[in-house]
């Protein structure tokens, strides 16, 4: 990974939003706004990916729409939408442009962690900011530690302030954020989240993401060198895992929603290119859309996609139950069903994005159509955590009655 890849920035990092966001006050309004935005985002999604044009303008429209604050609880002035609605919003946007769909992933995760572990004053302050249109990025993961859950970034409390030092990677959203939540561990290895202003001294976001998919997420590096924030800007994130909470499934369902969205987008493209395909010589039909073998392949994609959609919705209900009543059983149940959604969405996103090229034929691989982006995006985003261990997570519950471990990846 090199650090010298510099993209042409059409936007500028800022610690405050450009405009105040609108307020969305219902689940139905959230869906309607997402649908309008998705139609807008779909138009140049291919070009943005091809040129790796970072979506500064689109992201401003996205967060100014109010959609980034829809999970703020009603008690704090938000719509407090259900996770059925949130996962649908994320899928709708991801079907149009999965980089844009992924960008608020950690923002929503952080808002949930704030709800679980923040003080009353912190909740008032940061939920207000979310409603005003602040985007929270993330500087959580580290590329160099032994496992994903091992953090080397340190937070040290020093009187009224906290000092953070470390290096992060896969910082989706950090480049475009107004506030960058940074995870650091204290002397007892307990993770805290510090809300660091985008322009804080000692914080540098390096746009060195060169993944072949999700290209415009700019999920690169963050350097945290002696960053100092008031202790009032730090939340004890570890408490979300000390007791059963829905924090893990909340984080995971957003992943599954992005992948379900990619699958929807790829399926729609598969229909389009199959209709336009030339008939194969041996098929004996006049038009590509009459090909019985293509029709059967579309039929398989269709039921698999519907299965992924149905389980995503079921898992969202389970997350809502775990949020309302975070018992050990409810949280485990949510993790297991969200794990199923992760499996099914991964499979159909990869299958549909590959089949669309097969059914469309060689003409569809012309680089100018950029139809490979669905597969590149599916392959990249579904690597967030290894899906093979989700089959295991589900099986271990059934076979051995063992509940999933509680962490951000379950």
């Amino acid at each position: 990974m090199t650090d010298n890849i510099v993209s042409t920035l059409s936007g500028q990092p800022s610690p405050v939003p450009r405009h105040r966001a609108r307020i969305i006050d219902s689940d139905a309004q959230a869906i309607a706004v997402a649908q309008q935005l998705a139609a807008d985002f779909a138009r140049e999604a291919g070009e943005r990916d091809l040129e790796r044009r970072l979506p500064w303008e689109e992201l401003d429209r996205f967060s100014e729409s109010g959609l980034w604050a829809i999970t703020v609880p009603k008690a704090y002035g938000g719509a407090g939408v259900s996770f059925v609605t949130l996962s649908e919003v994320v899928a709708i946007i991801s079907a149009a442009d999965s980089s844009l769909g992924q960008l608020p992933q950690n923002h929503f995760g952080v808002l949930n962690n704030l709800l679980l572990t923040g003080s009353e004053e912190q909740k008032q302050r940061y939920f207000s900011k979310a409603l005003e249109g602040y985007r929270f990025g993330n500087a959580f993961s580290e590329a160099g530690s032994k496992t994903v859950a091992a953090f080397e970034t340190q937070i040290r409390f020093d009187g009224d302030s906290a000092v953070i030092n470390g290096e992060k990677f896969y910082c989706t959203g950090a480049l475009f954020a107004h506030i960058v939540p940074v995870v650091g561990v204290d002397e007892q290895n307990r993770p805290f989240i510090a809300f660091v202003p985008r322009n804080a001294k000692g914080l540098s976001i390096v746009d060195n993401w060169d993944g072949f998919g999700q290209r415009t997420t700019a999920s690169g590096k963050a350097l945290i060198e002696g960053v100092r924030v008031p202790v009032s800007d730090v939340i004890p994130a570890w408490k979300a895992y000390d007791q059963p909470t829905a924090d893990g499934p909340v984080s995971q369902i957003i992943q599954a929603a992005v992948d379900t969205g990619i699958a929807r987008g790829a399926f729609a493209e598969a229909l389009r290119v199959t209709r336009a395909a030339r008939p194969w010589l041996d098929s004996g039909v006049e038009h590509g859309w009459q090909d019985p073998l293509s029709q059967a392949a579309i039929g398989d994609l269709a039921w698999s996609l519907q299965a992924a959609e149905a389980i995503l919705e079921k898992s969202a209900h389970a997350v809502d139950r775990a949020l309302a009543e975070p018992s050990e059983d409810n949280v485990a149940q949510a993790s297991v069903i969200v794990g199923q959604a992760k499996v099914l969405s991964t499979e159909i996103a990869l299958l549909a994005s590959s089949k669309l090229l097969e059914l469309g034929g060689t003409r569809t691989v012309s680089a100018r159509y950029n139809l490979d982006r669905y597969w590149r995006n599916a392959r990249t985003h579904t690597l967030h955590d290894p899906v093979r261990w989700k089959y295991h997570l589900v099986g271990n519950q059934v076979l051995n009655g063992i509940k999933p471990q509680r962490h951000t990846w379950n």
Partner: protein
Amino acid sequence: MPKTHSHLQPDLTYARKALAALVAYLRVQPAKDDALVIASIGDLQIRIDAADALAQRISGENAPAHAIIEARLAAAHAARLASTLHGELTGSDLPRQLSTEPETPLLTQRRQLGDYYLNGVAIA
């Protein structure tokens, strides 16, 4: 009542029965701690729950024909995997009682479903 209903439920029932038999068999075997065995049981549970979720969608009176086929194909997939896995992990077949009701072949249902999404052709 559409014809496919008489096949969907037996397939789902068979898949659930095979899973229960597998779990009972494996619980007293060292294989219960084998990561691959555990994952394969998870795989089967996921297919059953997916078929079940699609079956719930068509529980009402006027379920659309395409949704009926979707649930039907998911249930068939779950039953096939259940049968294979039962044979592979226990070394014995779990007999499957096939419905005697006539049914459009599953191959044809797949094509009809594709024709519906691709060309808007109503499913007969």
